[in-house]
């Protein structure tokens, strides 16, 4: 007997479906259900149903709201810097045409490096007493002495500093994706605008960015999701400190779970985090991406 196409397709998808169900969906269900229990920190310890108590604890603790806010700030910093830098580089690449090829290759390398290595490296570069960045800034007479900016130990700027390696690592992704998108912009449109006497800024904001919109949206959404989940880069640089000033949601859930040994509370926090991530991403995809929409000029 011959299978229908629909059955055949189903069987081809079955192994991946089972795998994702067992190793992603099932852990997710467990995690969410843990959020309704008070769980002992010892494996096999008592487990009591407490309803929404963990959620109430999460929302009434200052840590949770602060971590949520920091996650948003961190994500916005990363995405804005990467977009501005990435677009600039992509436009330079495009303006130089084929001769920029070697540089495009160089821009690939940061994407290969482990976030943990990047975080460590920048911690070393920005370290207070023997960091090279402050030394070079002092040599260039931008700073009076190398101790003037305490990148990672000043709670007011640490959240910005920990974002630097993330920006350093993945701006290339935005550049390369936008560069590829720029190649698809029809040359005659630009040519026509130029003949009409349009300035470069007009061409950029009225033609290039609107035409690139779908590509920009995909790139920014993907990077935004990754930035909002950032963990290793921050952990290795500051471990959430100083004074929790870099403790984002991932770190808070991790610390509540592993350090403070409160799986129930950690699960409630993580569940809210998860739902927020899904809601924001889906909203972003529907609002910004808008596949096939033409009404934006």
């Amino acid at each position, binding site marked *: 007997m011959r299978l229908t196409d*629909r059955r*055949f*397709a189903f069987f081809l*998808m079955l*192994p*991946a479906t089972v*795998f*994702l169900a*067992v*190793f*992603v969906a099932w*852990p*997710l269900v467990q*995690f969410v259900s843990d959020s309704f229990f008070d769980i002992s920190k010892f494996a096999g310890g008592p487990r009591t149903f407490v309803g929404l108590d963990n959620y109430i604890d999460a929302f009434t603790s200052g840590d949770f709201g602060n971590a949520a806010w920091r996650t948003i700030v961190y994500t916005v910093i990363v995405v804005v810097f990467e977009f501005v830098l990435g677009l600039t580089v992509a*436009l*330079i690449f*495009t*303006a*130089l*045409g084929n001769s920029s090829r070697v*540089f*495009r290759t*160089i*821009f*690939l*390398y940061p*994407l*290969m*490096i*482990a976030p*943990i*290595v990047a975080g460590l*490296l920048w911690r*070393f570069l920005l370290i207070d007493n023997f960091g*090279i960045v402050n030394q070079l800034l002092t040599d260039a007479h931008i700073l009076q002495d*190398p101790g003037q900016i305490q990148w990672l130990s000043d709670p007011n700027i640490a959240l910005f500093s920990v974002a630097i390696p993330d920006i*350093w690592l993945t701006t290339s992704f935005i550049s390369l*994706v936008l560069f*590829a998108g720029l190649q*698809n912009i029809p*040359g005659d*449109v630009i*040519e026509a605008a*130029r003949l009409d006497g349009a300035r470069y800024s007009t061409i950029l904001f009225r033609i290039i960015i609107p035409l690139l919109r779908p*590509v920009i949206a995909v790139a920014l959404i*993907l990077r935004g*999701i990754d930035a909002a989940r950032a*963990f*290793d880069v921050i*952990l*290795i640089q500051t471990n959430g400190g100083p004074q929790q000033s870099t403790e984002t949601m*991932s770190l808070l859930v*991790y610390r509540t*779970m592993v350090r403070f040994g409160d*799986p129930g509370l950690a699960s409630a926090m*993580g569940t809210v985090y*998860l739902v927020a*991530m*899904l809601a924001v*991403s889906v909203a972003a995809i529907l609002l910004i991406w808008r596949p096939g929409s033409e009404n934006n000029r």
Partner: protein
Amino acid sequence: MNGLETTRVSSRAILWVALVLLVVLYGFPFLYMLFTSFKTPLETIAVPPTVLPSTWTIENYTSAIGRDGVVASFINSVVTAVLSTAISLVLALPAAYAVTRFRTRFGRFFIVGALVMRMVPPIVIGVPMIGIFRSLGISDTSLALAIAHATISLPLSIWLMSSFFEAVPEELEEAAKIDGASRLGALWRVVLPVTAGGIAVTAIFAFLASWNEFLFALLLTATRSQTTPIVIANFQTQFGLDWGAMTALAVLYSVPVILLALVLQRHIVAGLTAGAVKG
């Protein structure tokens, strides 16, 4: 030539200068790490810091490699990355093919599901995984970590492979079927060979996802299956702050993937842009 390319000599000169400056700024951190790894341990923490080593030495490399567990962690990293790439490809290839070729309702549900899984913070599924792997009897093994890494790379692989399969003309399979091939035969003998380039791209990304991953490795491995990122991170607590050995190990860990990038650069750009840029 693109309408955005500039031909004026003066503007090209300015742009070249800007680009070179950018690349120097961009490359400096990595070069500094490389230089630091060749300094003496004392010079790595000298005040004020130096850019180039005053005496070049491989002391940091020998001390990093000589440490307990470093070589074993490298082997673990390779084994885990290869295993998880294999798992991911074996599962993703048929699934992505089915999604693009047959367009069933389940297929649409499946591809949206794969996209949603990309948004799940790893910390959320990492902890329950500890229990799952314990009950499967594979705690602290490379297989368990490879499975965990495949939860990251599988959705990505499905997504990438769908865009590569979409580019294969359907007539190709029709022709194979007329020649008497079964659907499975057409997939195996006609479609997969044509998309070999895309499969390579997908494999690179799956490999990199595992090679550079940290959180699952932190949660799911103890001494036996520890990968190198964990060892690098542990340097700071276990042995004090040995920046020299740490940078040496970081360089060693980055060199294989940088060589990979050098050889396969064209494919990597294709993969990066495959999902995002479609006309």
